[in-house]
């Protein structure tokens, strides 16, 4: 038997009620103090908050920075820390810093320590690390413990060596360890969103199906609340055979349909949701509006897996991106964008070659807003009726200097080159800004989107305890 099977064992004595407040969809997205205070007054067993996502793309994991502002994160964290310490209850933060990598965790730790110093707060804190070293991952790949999660190839040893940063997504077990070690505040690295809320209940012997489903429902906090204006706290109350969800704010409500619909959100299936320890099955779940503000859910099951798996998310660095954006209003040019672009691309390649840069050393991409920049070849509307289009050109090259050099060539060609029937011979582009060329930053791509088998759910998640 694996450890996790025991850690998610249902208590025969029952759990009574375990109550929790999910602060906001993402640390830094905000919540009302009124909603939080109401939750605290009602007596919560713990506070949870998700702080990250891979939805904003590979850049933030690669760069090691959050996708929300430091100031907004500090505001949210400050209020929840004070609440947790004043009420003597745990505060669990998942996917710290946005990506859960080492710099993300360090960012969040620094914020917490800054707030604690300013407010005179003292507590025991656990940091649960989740960034993997290449040697560790290579061993797992060689042992055949890693496999694709969705439409992506097998992970190769070269992929691992080309990795800029990779994290593993933890389940509830590292939280259990941190809590057993006496931590009141847990800053977790990359974490299953639902695990933030399932951790304490599964530790106390709650039904894992209900615990995980409740976690799933409230992990985006205010997303299940109406009116949906900004983010806000949501309260979950877990019992032996059901759970109840209600908004923290007295003027808001949780409609049944929003609670039921939430398992659709960002998941491939609303019925089967895969977590490290198994699959949450909502096939038999029932959703009942018990009062205008609250919904009761029952019947959810957790099918524990034979093999414990954690998701891996990793990025490699592709190069440096620069870009310009410009408008085109000339009807003659709009009608022949394809040849205009291919002519310019060829000219840029010729000029680059003259400076010793092969066309394989850079990627130049043209996006025509007003035509098909959003859907590309899938765009069902083939002929644009637009009287103006937006041209976004970006260049990815090995470093900033090369990227800027190629982009400047592309800008000159696009601005000044002739095309058949050209009447406005002074320039083809309307630039909204000076400077026109913008350094965007390093470019990363997700090349690891896999699962890794584990015999010990704690193995890749070292826990560091500190007294704040």
């Amino acid at each position: 038997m694996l450890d996790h099977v025991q850690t998610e064992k249902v208590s025969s004595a029952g759990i009574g009620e375990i109550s929790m407040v999910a602060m906001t969809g993402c640390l830094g997205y905000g919540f009302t103090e009124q909603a939080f205070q109401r939750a605290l007054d009602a007596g919560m067993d713990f506070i949870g908050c998700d702080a990250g996502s891979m939805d904003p793309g590979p850049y933030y994991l690669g760069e090691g920075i959050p996708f929300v502002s430091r100031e907004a994160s500090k505001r949210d964290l400050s209020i929840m820390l004070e609440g947790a310490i004043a009420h003597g209850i745990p505060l669990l933060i998942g996917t710290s810093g946005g990506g859960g990598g080492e710099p993300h965790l360090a960012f969040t730790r620094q914020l917490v320590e800054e707030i604690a110093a300013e407010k005179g707060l003292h507590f025991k804190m656990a940091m649960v690390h989740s960034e993997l070293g290449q040697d560790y991952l290579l061993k797992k790949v060689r042992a055949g413990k890693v496999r694709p999660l969705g439409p992506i190839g097998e992970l190769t040893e070269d992929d691992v060596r080309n990795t800029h940063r990779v994290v593993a997504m933890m389940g509830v077990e590292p939280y259990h360890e941190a809590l057993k070690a006496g931590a009141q505040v847990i800053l977790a690295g990359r974490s299953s969103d639902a695990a933030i809320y399932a951790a304490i209940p599964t530790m106390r012997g709650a039904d894992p199906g209900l615990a995980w489903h409740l976690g799933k429902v409230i992990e985006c906090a205010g997303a299940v609340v109406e009116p949906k204006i900004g983010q806000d706290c949501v309260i979950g109350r877990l019992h032996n055979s059901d759970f109840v969800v209600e908004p923290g704010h007295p003027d808001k409500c949780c409609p049944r349909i929003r609670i039921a619909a939430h398992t659709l959100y960002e998941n491939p299936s609303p019925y089967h949701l895969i977590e490290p320890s198994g699959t949450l099955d909502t096939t038999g779940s029932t959703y009942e509006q018990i009062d205008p503000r609250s919904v009761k859910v029952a019947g959810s099951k957790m099918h524990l897996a034979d093999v414990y798996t954690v998701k891996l998310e990793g990025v490699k660095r592709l190069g440096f991106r620069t870009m310009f954006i410009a408008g085109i209003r000339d009807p003659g040019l709009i009608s022949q964008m394809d040849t205009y672009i291919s002519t310019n691309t060829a000219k840029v390649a010729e000029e680059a070659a003259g400076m010793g840069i092969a066309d394989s050393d850079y990627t130049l991409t043209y996006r025509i807003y007003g035509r098909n920049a959003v859907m590309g070849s899938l765009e069902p509307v083939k002929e644009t009726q637009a009287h103006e289009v937006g041209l976004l050109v970006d260049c990815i090259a090995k470093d900033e200097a090369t990227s800027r050099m190629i982009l400047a060539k592309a800008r000159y060609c696009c601005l000044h080159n002739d095309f058949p029937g050209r009447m406005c011979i002074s320039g083809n582009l309307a630039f909204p800004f000076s400077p026109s060329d913008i350094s965007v930053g390093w470019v990363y791509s997700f090349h690891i989107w896999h699962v890794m088998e584990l015999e010990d759910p704690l193995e890749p998640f070292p826990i560091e305890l500190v007294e704040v």
Partner: protein
Amino acid sequence: MALLKNLAKVIRSKNAGALQLTLDVMFADEATYTRVRDSDALNAHQVAFLYGISHNKVSVIPYDVAYAIKVTIPRAAPSGDPTDSDVYGAQQHAPLLDIVVPD
């Protein structure tokens, strides 16, 4: 007959992870939901045609409790890749709007 956009309350697209796109079509009431679900207008072959992929890569799941039909397909490129055009996958729903639902 009617167009899907005139029957649904929500037609949305979003990433389901970095490699998949999920499209949710949601209805305001059970009758409309059942009509569309049972019409089979939103089937794997139709979605495959609209999104230029093979029908065996399309998953269509009716979700009765929320009056919703969920469609999941592979992304053409991972979220944020140089050839990707929609990092969140939030504007890939348009081809579904004009699906014809028979009476």
